[in-house]
């Protein structure tokens, strides 16, 4: 039996205009057009979508879990980036 691999695609669905595309899952398809058709059939059978993106899974560059600290920890000690860091008297009202 000869093996025929359809590549893997990641599917992103925009629920309605005004919302961002959100990752829904993945599918296999021979090319981009078929990936769109399959994604339509698999992820939007009940009106879940207004727009679809399909992206070859191998095109996604992902950060590695072990780099989590290096990438994200520096934000932890920068409390001055948050509004609550600043002391404003209540009398000033909502700001």
């Amino acid at each position: 039996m000869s093996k025929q691999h359809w590549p893997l695609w990641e599917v992103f669905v925009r629920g309605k205009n005004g919302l961002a595309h959100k990752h829904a899952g993945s599918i296999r398809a021979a090319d981009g057009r078929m990936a769109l058709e399959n994604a339509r059939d698999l992820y939007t059978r009940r009106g879940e979508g207004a727009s679809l993106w399909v992206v070859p899974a191998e095109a996604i560059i992902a950060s590695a879990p072990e780099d989590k600290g290096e990438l994200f920890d520096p934000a932890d000690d920068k409390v001055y980036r948050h509004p609550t860091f600043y002391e404003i008297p209540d009398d000033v009202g909502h700001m």
Partner: protein
Amino acid sequence: MKDALTATDPRETAFEEHVSADGQVEPKDWMPEAYRKTLVRQISQHAHSEIIGMQPEGNWITRAPSLRRKVALIAKVQDEAGHGLYLYSAAETLGASRDDMVDALLEGKAKYSSIFNYPTPTWADIGAIGWLVDGAAITNQVPLCRTSYGPYARAMVRVCKEESFHQRQGYEIMLQLARGTDAQKKMAQEALNRWWWPCLMMFGPPDHDSPNSARSMAWKIKRHSNDELRQRFVDQTVPQAEFLGLSIPDPDLKWNEERGHYDFGTPPWDEFMEVVKGNGPCNRQRLNARRKAHDDGAWVREAALAHAEKRRERAEAASQAA
């Protein structure tokens, strides 16, 4: 000091702490090899069950008694195919190859839920499957929406949203038969008689005979034991049967005031083991149908790739000419 061979991998300790605090695990996170293997086995078996599960109901699409029933049944069977695809994708995130999983099913090496090895001789069986088999599946799957492996949990959220239509369409079929002629009511009762015990066995062996359960529960893959889920299903289903005016085929079934649950009889586990071993009423038929569908579709898979390649070459030639 521990020697290097017996020392626990610190990553494993961190992992255990993370999952026991209800932390989620994502595809590229470090995980113990046994956790990965358990999940690949469970998710791929779950996927195979969805795919094989299309057959008992697919059997009735051409004979559905009305157009309304027919469109609903087609939509349901299409959903089962979709559930299989969500699950194969989830298993692929663990490094499993889809081809290997499919091959294991076709070669009879992989398991799938035994419930799909029972036949659907009457239309009432379609009602009973939706009501009972999907009802049991929902009981199993709702807790899996919080399972520790992220992609599996997310697939289950989608699946559960879709399953509730399945159960309701099945119960509606049963309701219509139960309120119909004597012959229709008898047909509904007989379908309930056929599916009741196999459905109770969908939750797996009793806890004391389920050796892998404890570890799966420690890893938060499983959130409730087989017996807990079975009890939950019985408690939910008995009043639904009463509403239909049908009787559950279990002389030991009775409400236990003290426990606040129904007591019920012991399912025929000998039969279950036989079906698991491949000797159920439809095991061979189900696998043969799947193999035939796979072989008959081979040219489509090849043609789609050839077509994609041709389009790619044409696009390349056009861009060079420009």
